[in-house]
């Protein structure tokens, strides 16, 4: 199997980038998209060209490291699938694909397909936690958590922080990411005491980082490889509104 790959090449954050065309041969349908890049990189090294830099680690769809735009779609055409788990059987022999890094002001490109997503860490640091120092916890069963709430908290907590939601959003908003954490922690009784402060602080940080605003377009939900639902944004908005009113 063969693919024509147009890949964004950029030396570093300071230099300009451009699309470069490669013909990737020796592929087969069972390979993942990242393995196809591995094969291409081996060929490039043989030819003395610098390999394409891309982020990846677990290659089983859970660490959130990987991801780039494939023909304008974050993580490519297969729904609920990260780039590392996207196999080539979803493409046809000879297909032409355009691979580009996430595009967002808050995610500057570092090299080729690698972007800096540290803004996400800072949003979490602003309030994406429950303040419970080690050793100060009551017994695990001391506070019952209704099953449906635990299940919904888990749905939101499944976010892997890959950034596809930002990349897919025309405004480059961090709403799905931020909303997922606010929903996860806010649904649990343990997260209740800090619920309002959390929403205010995390949203404030999101704005500081240069992400855009959410206009409810829903592109994020469609791109999310973990199926995080738009409901988390509604949940966030509710908490944020209530917190803003209370503060006044």
């Amino acid at each position: 199997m063969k693919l024509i790959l147009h890949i964004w090449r950029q030396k570093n954050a300071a230099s300009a980038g451009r699309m470069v065309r490669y013909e990737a041969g020796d592929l087969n349908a069972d390979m993942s998209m990242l393995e196809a890049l591995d094969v291409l990189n081996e060929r490039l090294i043989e030819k003395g060209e610098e390999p394409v830099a891309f982020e990846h680690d677990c290659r089983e769809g859970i660490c959130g490291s990987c991801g780039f735009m494939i023909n304008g779609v974050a993580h490519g055409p297969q729904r609920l699938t990260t780039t590392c788990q996207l196999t080539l059987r979803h493409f046809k022999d000879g297909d032409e694909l355009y691979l580009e890094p996430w595009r967002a002001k808050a995610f500057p490109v570092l090299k080729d397909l690698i972007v800096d997503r540290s803004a996400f860490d800072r949003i979490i640091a602003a309030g994406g936690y429950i303040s419970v120092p080690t050793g100060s916890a009551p017994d695990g069963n001391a506070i019952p958590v209704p099953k449906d709430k635990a299940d919904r908290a888990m749905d939101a907590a499944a976010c892997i922080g890959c950034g596809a939601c930002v990349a897919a959003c025309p405004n480059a908003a961090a709403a799905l990411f931020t909303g997922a954490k606010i929903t996860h922690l806010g649904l649990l009784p343990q997260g209740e005491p800090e619920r309002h402060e959390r929403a205010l602080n995390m949203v404030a940080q999101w704005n500081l980082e240069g992400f855009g605003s959410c206009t409810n377009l829903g592109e994020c939900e469609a791109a999310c490889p973990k199926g995080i639902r738009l409901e988390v944004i509604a949940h966030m908005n509710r908490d944020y509104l209530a917190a803003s009113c209370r503060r006044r």
Partner: protein
Amino acid sequence: MALDAKSPGGPIESRWDRARFEMKLVNPANKRKHTIIVVGTGLAGASAAASLGELGYKVKSFCFQDSPRRAHSIAAQGGINAAKNYPNDGDSVFRLFYDTVKGGDFRARESNVYRLAHNSVSIIDQCVAQGVPFAREYGGTLSNRSFGGAQVSRTFYARGQTGQQLLLGAYQALERQVEAGQVEMFPRREMLDLVVIDGAARGIVTRNLVTGQLEHHVADAVVLGTGGYGNVYYLSTNAKGSNCTAIWRAHKRGAYFANPCFTQIHPTCIPVSGDYQSKLTLMSESLRNDGRIWVPKTPGDKRRPEAIPEQDRDYYLEQKYPSFGNLVPRDVASRNAKLVCDQGRGVGPGGLGVYLDLSDAIRRLGEDKIRERYGNLFEMYERITGDDPYKTPMRIYPAIHYTMGGLWVDYYLMSTIPGLFVIGEANFSDHGANRLGASALMQGLSDGYFILPYTVGNYLAQAKPAPADLSHPAFHEAEANVRSITERLMSIEGSRSVDSFHRELGKIVWDNCGMSRNAHDLERAIGKIRELRQEYWQNVRVLGAADDLNQSLEKAGRVADFFELSELMCRDALERNESCGGHFREEYQTPDGEARRNDDEFSYVAAWQYQGDGAPHALHKEPLEFEYVHPSQRSYK
């Protein structure tokens, strides 16, 4: 040097209590005067850095990934054990301790394991309070399930993403300390050397993976939570970036490496489908609860599995182990899969696979019930292989997924270098020769939340490290060492990529120091590793620049260390003339092919000392004594 494990004596139930009471304390006002480096942000590293920050220490936390949340603990699926006895089925701290010592095939330290079981209870409390969304019953209480190697239900879980949720809990606690100014976070940094001053660990040299710059960091203690070395086999269930560089370079500075040959192979992974394959994906062992494992009776039978009638199938585990059947422990299941494949009866491309067949269960329980139980696993399998497991049996094959060996530590988790602590999978301490399912998460968090924060303080209060700063010549010497490795790698300009060497090395180690080993092959493997290593240093090709983001250079340094480690693994496997846990020596088996331990001669921890490049490692033995769990032969017939 004589190895002193510093295990406290006395009744096992009170050892940790007494040790904690006897520890020296650092006055709260003095804690902020101490800087502690924590390398790695997995369950062990993140929980340690967060907890030390909460106590008031100044912490510097490092990871090679772009964010601490990416550490490979995130990929753990099954669950975490704890002796809560919520199901009222007779579990206790002692029972968890007993199961873990026995499961480790009597090659772990009793004191450590007891403490691990004791801490398990607090871990669940801590994680629940952090908001980890564990599975719940309708009444709102925590749910438990059973797991291999135990007859009680003590495993807590968050769907198939327990590792992810526990790691995010620790990561969030860590980010809280970053916000509070207690922890300074250094992502995209790789530790490339340990700085030892006056015999104590006082700093590290890191490479900034974006700019390529080498950076110096000074501290009063250094903690390594950098994970295991399963990627020495190239194909493993580890993340692509997982590596042994931090622990190996610390080893070369004087930290002993313990039991390197103790590696664990997981029986239910998706088989290799081609040469391009970059990693292996594990599927939860829970599939073995309802699945039947078989291969064709005759070698070379190429019919589709549905076309092979019942009488031509060999359900070899059910035949051989009538009482445990398909639920034998991981090592036994793995070895038997290899055995039938070696007989030429393996299935799928390359003949390295066996069928895991759920069609009986689907007939018995209906497709809906199976979908409810295993739907997500079936989807994952189909996504990777393109086969539909509801219609055709899955193919599985064993793969490396955990390393029990690691840097030697005493009861206080300190290595043979004073001030260098090692936690989580990076140390060797708690699992002996085989780790039970759902115990890795438990150990990482026990070390990070509940042991290290005390023992580091105890060290600082006693050692009273003298002031040190970056001007010390040891930093320059360490940087020069790192620089020379980098320059050598970049200047070879050979013709082969780093990955091609790594793949070849992995195959040598897998074939000779994998599921089963023998003296002849191990000897030969050492020779082959040396040859390949020599070629590596003459013919590897690393393109790009050293002062730039350069993934080939990152890999090149890691593979250089894997070469050295793999040789030591083979040495260790050669030295251990017995079979135990994950270490199966073909020469030492019972007449019916089971592992034969030799407690009289090998009931010890093998701790290896580095003596310079080219010089043989020196072996030190820490004898193991069993006062509470009497060594017995495992039987699953």
